[in-house]
């Protein structure tokens, strides 16, 4: 679920990224073995209360769950078929609560702070050539270009609709891919124009 940071200051925005991630991690671990429906429901209610406490606008962001609903339905169905309604209920409530909680962290944490908090975890990978800086740049690019790509798709759909009464469906896939690739090239160029990915510390000695 790619949720975008909401630029609005709530009390949760002011908490450090590390502490939010820790709460997320601990509560997920605690909830994982719990099977009791009342406890799980209470957990979900707490999460919803957190959304409410961050403001009405943030509460509306629960709608971001919508794309996941079909998958939840399938998971629920599988559990009903293989087990019982109660089991399906447990799994679904737990999943929804955790998704919402994780999403809340994304909504209230700036990407840079998130990456800073996670950097120590990536450090062991450094000898393999995966520098935290590269990684954080990759994540930043993903978050930045998700809406741009969506807008590209919308523009393509619009220009299709302007000339056709039928639905474009899969036929926009090829032009979309081409546009995305070309955009990637231009973005790469812009990145390079500002010095590229390498850390400039040792590079630029302007004295």
């Amino acid at each position, binding site marked *: 679920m790619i949720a975008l940071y909401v*630029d609005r200051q709530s009390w949760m925005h002011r908490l450090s990224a590390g502490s939010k991630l820790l709460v997320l991690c601990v509560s997920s671990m605690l909830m994982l073995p719990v099977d009791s429906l009342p406890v799980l429901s209470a957990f979900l209610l707490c999460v919803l209360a957190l959304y409410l406490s961050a403001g009405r606008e943030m509460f509306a962001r629960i709608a971001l769950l919508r794309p996941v609903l079909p998958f939840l339905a399938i998971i629920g169905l599988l559990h009903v078929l293989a087990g019982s309604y109660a089991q399906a209920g447990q799994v679904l409530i737990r999943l929804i609560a955790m998704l919402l909680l994780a999403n809340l962290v994304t909504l209230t944490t700036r990407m*840079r702070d998130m990456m800073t908090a996670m950097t120590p975890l990536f450090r062991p990978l450094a000898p393999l050539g995966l520098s935290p800086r590269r990684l954080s740049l990759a994540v930043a690019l993903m978050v930045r270009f998700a809406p741009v790509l969506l807008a590209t798709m919308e523009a393509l759909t619009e220009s299709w609709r302007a000339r056709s009464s039928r639905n474009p469906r899969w036929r926009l896939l090829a032009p979309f891919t081409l546009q995305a690739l070309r955009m990637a090239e231009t973005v790469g160029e812009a990145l390079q124009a500002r010095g590229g990915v390498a850390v400039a510390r040792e590079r630029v000695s302007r004295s």
Partner: protein
Amino acid sequence: MLAWLRKKTAAASAKPIAQTDAVTLSEVTVDRGERTVLDGISLSLNERSIGLVGDNGAGKSTLLKLLNGLLLPDAGTVNVFGHDTRQHGQFLPALAGFIFQNPDHQLIFPTVAEELAFGLEQLGQSAEEAETGARAFLRQYRVEALADKPVHCLSEGQKQFVCVLSVLIMRPRLLLLDEPFSSLDLTTRHRLLGLMQTQAERVLMVSHDLELLAGFERVIWLRDGGVHRDGVPAEVLPAYRADAMARLHAEPAWGTEQ
């Protein structure tokens, strides 16, 4: 708005200076496959504001990219303030800032503060220093309210403004502008250009906005990979316009039979 832009000039001139003041191309050739994009071109680019005009495919963008080191010449040398782009390419991003046509291709970070901080990190600052510096820079331009805004929520004008700031924060001496104003209204065009001209000692701009270029010191007209005319706007621009119109009337219009 322009008043506070001018106030910044003094601060900008105090930045560290590289070895020379000259920006030159000597007998530069650039080939792209079968086509020669620039053909043995030699230029000294030492005016404060230079416009580049010419048809699509005349080599304007290629010329800009050579000066930032995005492209290296196939023959000849490009020297930017004493740095040969082939040998000292690593210094160029800080010396020659590049602003592209579409801000959506240039803004690489989700929020405005991160976008600006990136430039400072490129100059060797730590993440914290860069963050503080970026916020201070925004405050200087009285747009600190933009700091935590997601970039995709900004208007076109604001986006291009952020692009300009994110390049200016690196304090480049030369600004390379590749049709940066195509999607902007008239007021924003003049504002941004005014800002850039007060902040960088040299501006080289590709544009089809002849009105805007009329205020420049020099205009270079490129044609078929070479310099066709080079001089003050009052001479070059009317000639360019007349030539474009003459060619328009000499060829049969699109959609008519020959």
